[in-house]
């Protein structure tokens, strides 16, 4: 370390000596000089170095920012064009201009939205990109992730997440139907997950952690099913139509993370009200970030596949999707999970009440607090003695 500090000191010393002739020149002599003569005498190497570093930072910043913007433009350009053929309203209208997406967090999060279609309430496309304008932070984070992976719970990878929410409203339905809540046939968890991110998906999505992992010969080798009940795995084949799902999945294996139908939240609810509030049937398609038109076309085909599932689901009887047994299983699982949350809630509330009581006692009667502690200590000793006997 001392060698490093010494070399750093030498470097500073060299920097100071750059302008030694200038500083040694008497003040009177400098005063008589013209500006040009003074500039000639002064060594601008250090200042030039600083300017070069600043320009380099500016270049890296604008390069990183433009890279993210270009990626977003390509993705949303393609996906919005497709969504325009399906929805009446796509993207945003801001300050008198059509905006294909909204950006957040210095061009690292991009969002687009589409609504106005039979059977589908909305489609939200979210893209998360790395802060490429700050390569140093990316490098440090990667280094830390490499050595201390367990310190990071989130998946710091770029991804596209498409959320499709159904509304169970056919084209010519009365307006009243829009206000009706979704029937319980939409409330199930069933997902096709790429084997490359099975664990990550379960860690990052609360609802996936509640499912069974089942490998199936009906799926390409790169994927597995994660469903609440094994019988739910068949809904993809039963309700989906259009392109052959297996061919589509096989072609998408390089970028598709998962395709999941769920009604439970991604983050574990901490209270029962939070649980109730976040119940929302939807389909989530998660993919790696891609700008390849062929892969973007495959994403649109996957979205189309989900649309057909929701269309058929809307017209299908509840018993076809969730038969008596499956429905019971699904309800049981939800009740168990909710009970666990309520139990934890009660424990936390009890703990907080205890702490409050102790604090109140400390404030009102410090002697009683000391007596209580002594009593606890006596009990502890008594228990220890009993145990020893």
């Amino acid at each position, binding site marked *: 370390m001392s060698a490093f500090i010494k070399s750093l000191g030498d470097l500073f010393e060299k920097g100071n000596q750059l302008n030694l002739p200038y500083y040694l020149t008497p003040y009177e002599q400098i005063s008589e000089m013209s500006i040009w003569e003074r500039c000639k005498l002064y060594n601008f190497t250090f200042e030039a170095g600083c300017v070069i570093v600043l320009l380099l930072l500016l270049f890296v910043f604008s390069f990183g920012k433009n890279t993210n913007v270009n990626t977003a433009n390509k993705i949303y350009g393609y996906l919005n064009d497709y969504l325009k053929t399906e929805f009446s309203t796509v993207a945003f209208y801001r300050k008198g201009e059509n905006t294909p997406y909204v950006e957040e967090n210095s061009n690292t999060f991009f969002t687009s939205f589409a609504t106005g279609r039979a059977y589908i309430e909305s489609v939200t496309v979210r893209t998360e990109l790395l802060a490429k304008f700050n390569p140093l932070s990316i490098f440090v984070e990667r280094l830390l992730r*490499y*050595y201390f992976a*367990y310190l990071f719970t989130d998946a710091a990878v770029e991804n596209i997440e498409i959320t499709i929410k159904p509304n169970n409203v056919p084209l010519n339905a009365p307006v009243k139907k829009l206000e009706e809540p979704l029937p319980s046939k939409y409330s199930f968890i069933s997902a096709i997950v790429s*084997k*490359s991110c*099975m*664990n990550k998906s*379960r860690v990052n999505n609360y609802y996936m952690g509640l499912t069974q*992992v089942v*490998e199936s010969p009906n799926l390409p*080798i*790169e994927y*597995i099913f994660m469903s609440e009940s094994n019988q739910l795995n068949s809904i993809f084949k039963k309700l989906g139509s259009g392109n052959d799902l297996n061919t589509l999945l096989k072609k998408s294996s390089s970028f598709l993370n998962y395709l999941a139908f769920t009604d439970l939240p991604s983050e574990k609810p901490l209270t029962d009200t939070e649980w109730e509030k976040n119940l929302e049937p939807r389909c989530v398609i998660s993919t790696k970030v891609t700008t390849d038109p062929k892969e973007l076309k495959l994403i649109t085909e996957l979205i189309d596949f989900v649309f057909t599932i929701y269309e058929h689901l809307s017209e299908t009887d509840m018993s076809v999707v969730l038969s008596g047994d499956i429905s019971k299983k699904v309800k049981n699982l939800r009740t168990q999970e909710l009970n666990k949350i309520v139990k934890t809630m009660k424990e936390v509330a009890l703990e907080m009440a205890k702490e409050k009581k102790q604090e109140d006692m400390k404030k009102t009667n410090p002697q009683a607090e000391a007596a209580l502690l002594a009593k606890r200590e006596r009990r502890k000793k008594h228990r220890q003695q009993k145990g020893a006997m």
Partner: protein
Amino acid sequence: MNPAVTNIGLMLLMNQFAKRLDMENKDTIFYIRVAFVAMNLITYLVYQYTRMQIIKRNDLTTLKYKEQKSAFQSMSDPNAATDDMHITTHRDYDLGQVDTAIKGMYSSLAMMGFMHLYMGYTQPLLMQSVSPVKGAFESPAVKIHLFGKEAAGALKRPFTAPSMFGGAPKNEEVEAKKEK
């Protein structure tokens, strides 16, 4: 024989060998440095070749196992469940094992660099010349993918660290399910 026991034996042997060398001699130091770098290079190449083989084989068989949290993790979150269920593939599991070994190698290199270049010790450099290669060839992933051994018995995934005194291995992963 148990790798932990052979490691101790090797250490004692190398210690005796090191005592017979003149560690003040510049030529000796040079040859020890060469041996250390060469051995680590060989180890690195072995791991990289194994990595290539794992990717080439692309074994997507599902593997489920429970992994105990490290002491540090337990300290940081004592309320969390002790065991975490991991679901992965043979390919990703093996790659993870090789990556962990490579990480260990980097840490060892940094430690040796500090001890030799800053503290001026040469003996640890000699001791650490053979261990990485030995460790690499004893690694289950290398045995399976480089020597083509069957992933059964002691080499069954999830890999378990053999007990030092020949007792039952500490089986931290309780459930392993194979499906093709």
